[in-house]
């Protein structure tokens, strides 16, 4: 049986519909039982700037992208030649250097590209008259004169043409196209299918298309897997967890999650509020969480920079939330809004003034994103603190097959709650003067023994540090909350003993979380225990590192991978033990300094000297990881990795 292994790439200006084509192709493959890993690179621009989408297809699970494609569909000249001709500092030099030997290039014959200039005699070039084909498809239904209006169908033309090379069944793709144009738009769907078919036939006429070396076959026993993007998974996890209030302020690449949720408002009784800025977003979510619902928000670095005071506020007030999905992108400042970076780990760990508890978790893939986002809501209510789920641009926008999406830990845990009584602060006061005194006098010099107070106290010193929470509207659960240091009532205090007791109460909750969160969710050692080299990484590089490990294993290299997932509270002892037992350690991160390596050193005392960092705004490819690790394995010093741009 033939082994399916193909990377298909489409490039064009923003707004030309490369996403639609790539996703149709990805879906046509996924529905036929193949595994897909697709990722997009795009500029922070609405129309015109260069973007490209890679679709990697395989029989086996693929969790990363390859440096080189087998087929390239070019909707414009820039995709082939780069932008050096119209920019003083070229952003890129085109993708011709990123095509495997003997690969195929389909391009619009109108863009003025001469294959002779490509300096790639091994490639097969297929000029296709995109507009002519669109016109022909329209003429068949008597709309030939409207061709310019349908220029956007060029992406489908390119897709249809490419199928002639890889021999993937046209009908499977046509079916996906049709399913995207339903109802009144069915006619447009048919036009797209027809244009794709004409392009398909056009390329088929070429003699060289007949024995094209990179082909793809549907699986004999197709199994339609879920084909999802990370932001969808974060959003669905929020729904599953009972989140009923989501706030946001538009920001790339976090917005997609909120817009997805916005569409579900009716069906799931969820309210999504678009706020005036991120300060409003976080604080509205804090207000909602204190009111007793599971509240969430989503943002990216610049928005997170505004949210930080709200995180400190949520933490000191022991708010049961919110859950914040933080989509990292290239920083600092506005940085690279649509590009990848794992640059906000340190920032997420230390977002605001003072010492305060919060939980930070960094899922490594879509399944972990589902679990961790779900668990975050339990932790928020159980430990009464804000939770940050660290995602990133890559995880948000990757489009990949998932066998099964399920929760290993699926219980809803709403934590300790006060459900109402006839005690009220007012009624109980007289009966318990001695007890309430410490709470009320604000200077902390009263008696601290509040065990016998017969009234609800929001910040009572419960044995495990978690005071049952009340919410407005509950009889007898009246209380105050304040961003100032406070006493058990929630009134301001600057007293010495009360300050110490409250700090210890709050900070102590981290220990509870550390003990209760399953170890498997805190970190995981992938691969052989007795490896020669241990890779330390976190977040969305997981799949790439695991794919690379397979290839290194085939080269006879014994490498394992310590994936850190729970960043706060950090599993310092276990991680320290593993690393102290490792023969050699190298960290692998998509940031400049090796932020996890710094956390590891701070938490465990283990210094990771070898750091493979990538900070060019692009995720690691499988090849880059294999090459970088192989070099270190052979004894070379770790070096930064840069995407090969020529």
């Amino acid at each position, binding site marked *: 049986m033939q082994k399916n292994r193909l990377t298909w790439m489409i490039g064009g200006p923003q707004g030309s519909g490369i996403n639609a084509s790539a996703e149709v192709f990805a879906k046509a493959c996924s529905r036929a039982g193949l595994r897909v890993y697709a990722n997009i690179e795009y500029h922070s621009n609405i129309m015109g700037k260069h973007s490209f989408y890679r679709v990697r297809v395989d029989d086996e699970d693929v969790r990363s992208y390859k440096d080189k494609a087998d087929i390239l569909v070019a909707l414009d000249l820039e995709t082939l030649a780069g932008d050096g001709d119209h920019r003083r500092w070229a952003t890129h030099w085109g993708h011709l250097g990123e095509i495997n030997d003997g690969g195929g290039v389909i391009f619009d014959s109108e863009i003025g590209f001469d294959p002779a200039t490509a300096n790639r005699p091994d490639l097969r070039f297929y000029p296709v008259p995109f507009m002519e084909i669109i016109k022909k498809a329209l003429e068949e239904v008597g709309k030939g004169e409207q061709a310019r209006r349908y220029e956007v169908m060029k992406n489908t033309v390119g897709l249809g043409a490419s199928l002639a090379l890889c021999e993937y069944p046209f009908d499977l793709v046509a079916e996906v196209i049709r399913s995207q144009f339903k109802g009144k738009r069915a006619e447009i769907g048919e036009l797209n299918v027809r244009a794709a078919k004409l392009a398909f036939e056009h390329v088929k006429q070429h003699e060289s298309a007949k024995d094209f070396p990179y082909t793809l076959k549907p699986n004999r026993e197709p199994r339609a897997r879920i*084909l999802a993007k990370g932001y969808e998974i974060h959003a669905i996890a929020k*729904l599953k967890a009972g989140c009923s209030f989501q706030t946001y302020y538009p920001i790339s690449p976090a917005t997609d999650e909120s817009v997805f949720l916005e569409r579900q408002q009716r069906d799931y009784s969820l*309210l999504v509020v678009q706020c*005036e800025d991120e300060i409003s977003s976080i604080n509205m979510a804090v207000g909602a969480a*204190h*009111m*007793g619902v599971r*509240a969430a928000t989503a943002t990216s670095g610049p928005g997170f920079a505004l949210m930080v005071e709200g995180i400190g506020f949520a933490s000191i007030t022991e708010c049961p939330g919110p859950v914040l999905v933080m989509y990292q992108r290239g920083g600092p400042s506005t940085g690279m809004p649509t590009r990848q970076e794992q640059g906000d780990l340190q920032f997420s760990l230390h977002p605001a003034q003072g010492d305060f508890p919060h939980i930070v978790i960094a899922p490594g893939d879509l399944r972990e994103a589902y679990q961790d986002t779900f668990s975050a809501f339990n932790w928020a209510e159980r430990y009464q603190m804000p939770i940050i789920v660290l995602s990133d641009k890559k995880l948000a926008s990757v489009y990949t097959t998932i066998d099964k999406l399920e929760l290993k830990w699926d219980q809803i845990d709403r934590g300790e709650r006060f459900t109402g009584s006839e005690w009220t602060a007012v009624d109980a006061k007289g009966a318990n003067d001695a007890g309430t005194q410490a709470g009320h006098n*604000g200077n902390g010099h009263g008696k601290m023994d509040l065990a016998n107070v017969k009234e609800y106290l929001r910040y009572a010193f419960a044995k495990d540090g978690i005071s049952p929470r009340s919410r407005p509207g509950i009889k007898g*659960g009246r209380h105050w909350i304040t961003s100032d240091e406070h006493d058990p009532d929630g009134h301001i205090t600057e007293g010495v003993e009360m300050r110490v007791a409250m700090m210890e109460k709050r900070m102590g909750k981290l220990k509870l979380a550390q003990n209760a969160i399953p170890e498997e969710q805190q970190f995981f050692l992938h691969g052989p225990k007795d490896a020669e080299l241990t890779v330390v990484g976190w977040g969305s590089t997981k799949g790439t590192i695991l794919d690379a490990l397979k290839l290194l294993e085939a080269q006879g290299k014994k490498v394992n991978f310590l994936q850190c997932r729970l960043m706060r509270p950090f599993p310092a002892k276990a991680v320290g033990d593993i690393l102290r037992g490792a023969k050699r350690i190298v960290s692998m991160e998509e940031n400049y300094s090796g932020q996890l390596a710094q956390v590891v050193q701070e938490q465990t005392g283990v210094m990771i000297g070898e750091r493979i960092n990538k900070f060019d705004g692009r995720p690691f490819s499988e090849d880059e990881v294999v090459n970088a690790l192989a070099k270190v394995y052979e004894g070379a010093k770790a070096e930064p990795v840069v995407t090969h741009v020529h």
Partner: protein
Amino acid sequence: MSINAPAKPLAIKDYKSDLHNDWCPGCGDFGILTGIQMALQQLQIEPDKLAVYSGIGCSGKTPHYINGYGFHTLHGRVLTVATGGRLVNTDLTVLALGGDGDGYGIGAGYFVGAGRRNADFAYIVHNNNVYGLTKGQASPTLSKGKKTKSMPEQAIQDGINPVAMAVASGYTFIARGYALEPKYLASIIVKAIQHKGSALVDVLQTCPTYNDLYTKEWYEGADLPEKRSRLYKLEDKSYDGKVQDPTDAQEIVAKKAAAVARSYETDPIPIGIYYQIELPTYEDAVSQRIPALAEKPLVDQDVFHRDVTPLLEAMR
């Protein structure tokens, strides 16, 4: 009030917490606190069904002195936290409190944002022209060229007009009160709470410690030869800011223009209701989108048995 207690009318004392008050003697905040408590008593609002939010500053401490659920939030962010609470639990009476620096300076963006939404709450601004808790710097309502005894130099920036800003932002109830007339203030707060939508009550307030310009005596006009008050009540001049027909664009513009014109009167200064209109609230709009909310608020919805399978199936 305990669950088993016989129903009896709530008294003013039922709205007082037992916390020691640390405002300066003679602070205008006392008058505002009293006005709020009188209004709550007049409306017989159950303390368990009351959520009072505040920002940071002297005014921010107000919820601690009120018996109800109190949320003392962050400087400038009170409206955001209050909105979040309000939207998920529509069974409560929501009050938001803050100072002029809090609401019109650091919180100006949220002041505007809240006006655009028109969620149902009353926002009471303690407007004393200075930042009291940091010892008397100029607030956003102090006019250019003015100098209180706490300031080293005259104000170099001009003051804003909160009423005009509220009109432009979309507040559907806009009023002004005076802290040292708590009874009259209470009558305005009652109407602000009863109003469905975002209600602004800007309260002219004295700061005896730092503001020696706008004192009790100044408001009373003790320095004027005719010894007349520097305040007048809008209704005493037959002014009616209420829009009778909310579908009449001309009437709306006329009433807004009248409110803005009055808000620029400086001597005497009008107090009372500048503008009011009955319009659908944010909550009304939300209930149309999420029909289940017409029955009960979000906080009481069962959201823990959701079936997300259809969403996942759609991805195959």
